Structures are given as structure tokens and as C-alpha cells.
């Protein structure tokens, strides 16, 4: 008998914790969406599952602390369980200097040519004294400064100034592209969300 325990229900995936032969395994299962026609639904779930697993493997093999995809099926990724706390739950309990490590974590990811696109404390797990990055559901292969800057921005909005100053120090240390990315971040923040979005009103 295997025991399934649903530990999370996000906007597109359920997360199950399952014990297989004494080892805890996480299963990320992309649900069927009842509002999509079957063709789009299946295509998206298969495509996104495959892509997430591929990027997660690349991140892992590039030295990013993250889970390893063990088995990938059409709609599910089986990965190792990282037993710890989501960073958003313990944000104010950890020392400010620890945020340097999170900066380094992001630098390692960017160096591997990956942007996360959902780089928030909810997607970082603190296990012991080490931080692990999870949820590559929106990640893309990219070395674009703008996309990298968005990762910084998301984190900046979720933590306080002191925490961010350590975070950015960790990110920038011996990082050849940190200046370009920080400059781009400043531009994005000035711009707000504004862009021209109309064909006919020009």
C-alpha cells in the first residue's frame, strides 16, 4: 500500500508527498483544467511538465541547489523531497546576512542560462542552513538582462531593504553580468508597467 498525502494545491499543479520503500518522494501533478478544450489542456500539461523537468535537471547539473527530477511522466514529475520550511514562512526568523546565500543561488541559476520567473520566498525551501530553489514551472532558458532583472525584482518586492542589500551582494559577487542586470532593474522600476498596448489608438 502506498500512502498519498496532498501537501499543496497551486493554480495548475497538486503536490503529493508519497513514501516509496521508506523514501519520501514529491510528486508534482498537473491537473486537468475543466475550462480548456481537451487538445489544449493535454498539450499544455505535457509540454509544461516536460519543460519543467528539463530545466530543473539542467539547473541541478549546473550546481543549483534544487530537487532532482527522478521520473517524468505525461503530467507528473517525481522528485526528491526537501524537508524544510518554505522561506515565506520563516522570513523574519533568519539572519539578514543569510540572504547573501539566496543571492548566490540566483546567480548560479542565471549563470546556467536559466531565468526562474517566479523567484519569490514561496519557492525557496530552507533545510538546515541551506536554501533550495523549487518550482521551475515558469522557468525559461534565457540570458537576457531584462528577464534576469525580473527575478531580482520579484525577490526585492518580497523582502525588506536590509535583507535585499545582502541578497544583492550575494548575487553580484564576482558576477560578470551583475552590473547590466542591476542597471536594467533600475530602468524597469522607473518604467512601472507602462508600455503602449494598442494598435488602433496610435
Amino acid at each position, binding site marked *: 500500500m502506498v500512502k498519498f498525502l496532498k501537501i499543496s494545491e497551486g493554480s495548475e499543479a497538486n503536490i503529493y508527498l508519497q513514501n516509496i520503500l521508506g523514501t519520501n518522494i514529491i510528486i508534482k501533478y498537473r491537473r486537468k*483544467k475543466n475550462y*480548456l478544450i481537451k*487538445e489544449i489542456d493535454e498539450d499544455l500539461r505535457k509540454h509544461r511538465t516536460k519543460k519543467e523537468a528539463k530545466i530543473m535537471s539542467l539547473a541541478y547539473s549546473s550546481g543549483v541547489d534544487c530537487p532532482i527530477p527522478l521520473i517524468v511522466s505525461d503530467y507528473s514529475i517525481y522528485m526528491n523531497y526537501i524537508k524544510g520550511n518554505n522561506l515565506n514562512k520563516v522570513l523574519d526568523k533568519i539572519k539578514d546576512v543569510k540572504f547573501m546565500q539566496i543571492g548566490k543561488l540566483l546567480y548560479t541559476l542565471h549563470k546556467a542560462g536559466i531565468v526562474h520567473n517566479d523567484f519569490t520566498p514561496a519557492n525557496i525551501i530552507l533545510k538546515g542552513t541551506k536554501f533550495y530553489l523549487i518550482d521551475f514551472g515558469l522557468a525559461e532558458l534565457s540570458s537576457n538582462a531584462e528577464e534576469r532583472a525580473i527575478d531580482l525584482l520579484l525577490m526585492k518586492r518580497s523582502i525588506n531593504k536590509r535583507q535585499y542589500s545582502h541578497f544583492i551582494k550575494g548575487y553580484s559577487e564576482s558576477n560578470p553580468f551583475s552590473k547590466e542586470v542591476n542597471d536594467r532593474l533600475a530602468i524597469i522600476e522607473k518604467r512601472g508597467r507602462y508600455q503602449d498596448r494598442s494598435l488602433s489608438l496610435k
Partner: protein
Amino acid sequence: MILGIESSAHTLGVGIVDNGKILANSKRMYDIKESGMIPAKVADFHAENVYDVIESALESAKINIDELDGIGYTKGPGIGPCLHVGQLAASYLSYKLKLPIYPVNHAIAHIEITKHLAGFKDPLALYVSGGNSQVLGISNIPKKHYQVYGETLDIGVGNMLDNFARAAKLVPAWGSTVAKVAEGGRYIKMPYSVKGMDFTFTGLLTNAVRLLDSNKVSDIAFSLQETAFSMLTEATERALMLTGKTELVLSGGVAQSNRLRSMLMDMTKSHGIKFYDADNQFNADNGAMIALVAEEMYNSGATFGKDKLGINQRYRIDKVEVLW
């Protein structure tokens, strides 16, 4: 009692509200088929009709013009010359009747009237019009305003559908015709582009237009519509999860689409979220929504100096402080 004038695009609308009750919602529409959307021509049409429509609104509300307490008009976003007509008419009435005048953001008006009719307190909103497509909700930081959680990074979904309709030589060339043609169509794979809560439509449009030579129009129309609305629904679903809001309203011109409504209905049902879409007279451009927001401003005691009373063709919804 507040009168509101809407003139941002091809509709000239005049509405009257009294304590949230809609007493009149009169309108006249410029016929795009005549000579397309030439701004100066549409503005002329509005100028010729605005006082007639004001009178017919007063008539259907069964009130006298001097019973009014304030005048609202659409400040933007919209087409400059068209917005100008509404602004001038509102200024004139305000001057003549010595009434306060209220500049209203068009997108906020669409959302506020839907929220008002739904009786919702703090909904997430999917606002879909010709030039815009956004997922929004009220945020109190730093000041009370509509925060954009996600939006189109290129063109509005309405423009996208209209452009496809034109390329496919559908008449009239707009979204409801695409919907009709889509009936019975079969799915062809299309590029699907959602990034978090943002989305883009040009790739989809280009692909659909390219397929016109080699495929049935109904199949393309169906696939285009399914893909675009699925993208909007997914982005909205994400924003609902992120914000934890428990109500959703759908507003704006494209809210008249039955397929988009049914997708959002299915999505919200699966999460136990309340969903509301308004009667089509409020999804189409209308004066009642402008009057409603102007009344909310009036009730809040807000006043607007001359420097705030212009028009702004690109009036961003997240730049507006919500004073009510």
C-alpha cells in the same frame, strides 16, 4: 443625481444614476461600416449627437436638467478627438448649471459598474476591451488604486480579434463575427503565450492569418478564439490564487463573448469563487458607468481642479487614485 458622458471610441453614451440606481443609459453608435474608424469623423458624429443623447437620457430618467448634482465624463484612455467632445459637453453643462465635474477613467468605470451590479466587495477583475486586456484588483499600497497583476504585453484581445476578422474578410470585422464563424470549427494547434500573469497576442494573430491560405476559416477562428480566451482565463486563475481574492468580475467590450464567460464560469466554479458578468449594455461602452464612478467621487467629497480636467488618451488605470 449624476449625469455621465462617455465618448472614448465609436459610442456616444449618456447615463444618469441616483444613489447607485441607474435611471438612464442612452447611447448612439457611429457606424464603423460607413468609413472605418477615422477619428475626426467619429468625433464629428459625437458632436452632432451629444446634446440629443443628453436629452433622451433626461427623458428616460424622467428628470429635469436642474435636478442634477454633478457631471462626469471620460478622461481616457481613448481616441483624442472623441474624448474631447465628451469633455467639452461636460464642461459646458458644468459651467451652465454650476455643477461639479468629475474626470473618469474608462477602464475603472467598466469594472466599477460590474462590481456594483454584482454587489461584490473586493473582486479581482478581468478587463478585456479593444485596446486593452488586464487582470486587476484593488490594492491599498501605497495608496488605494487598481493594481495590474497581469496584462497583455502587446495588443488588446479585442484588437486581435478585429484584425483577424479583417484579414479573413469577415463582415462586420469584429469579435462577435469571429465567434459566429468559430461555431463547429475544429482545433488546429496555435502558439500559446502566457508568462506568469502576462500574455501576448501578436504571435497568435500572425499565425492565424498565415493559416488562412491553407485551412478552413471556421477551424482557424475556433482555434484562435479558444487559445486567446484560454490564455486570459489561465492568467486570471493564477492571479486569483496569488491574491486569494474570492470574487471575480468580467468587464469591457470582449466580456460580451459567451465562450469567454463560460470558461471563466467553469474556472471559478472549480475553485469555489463567485463570478459575475454584467448585462451587455454595460460591457459595451456606456454612459451609466461614467455616471456611477462620478457619483462615487461626488459622495467621497473629492473635487478636481482645472489641471485634472483634461483628456488623456493613454490614461493608465493604475495611475488613478481610488478616492471612494
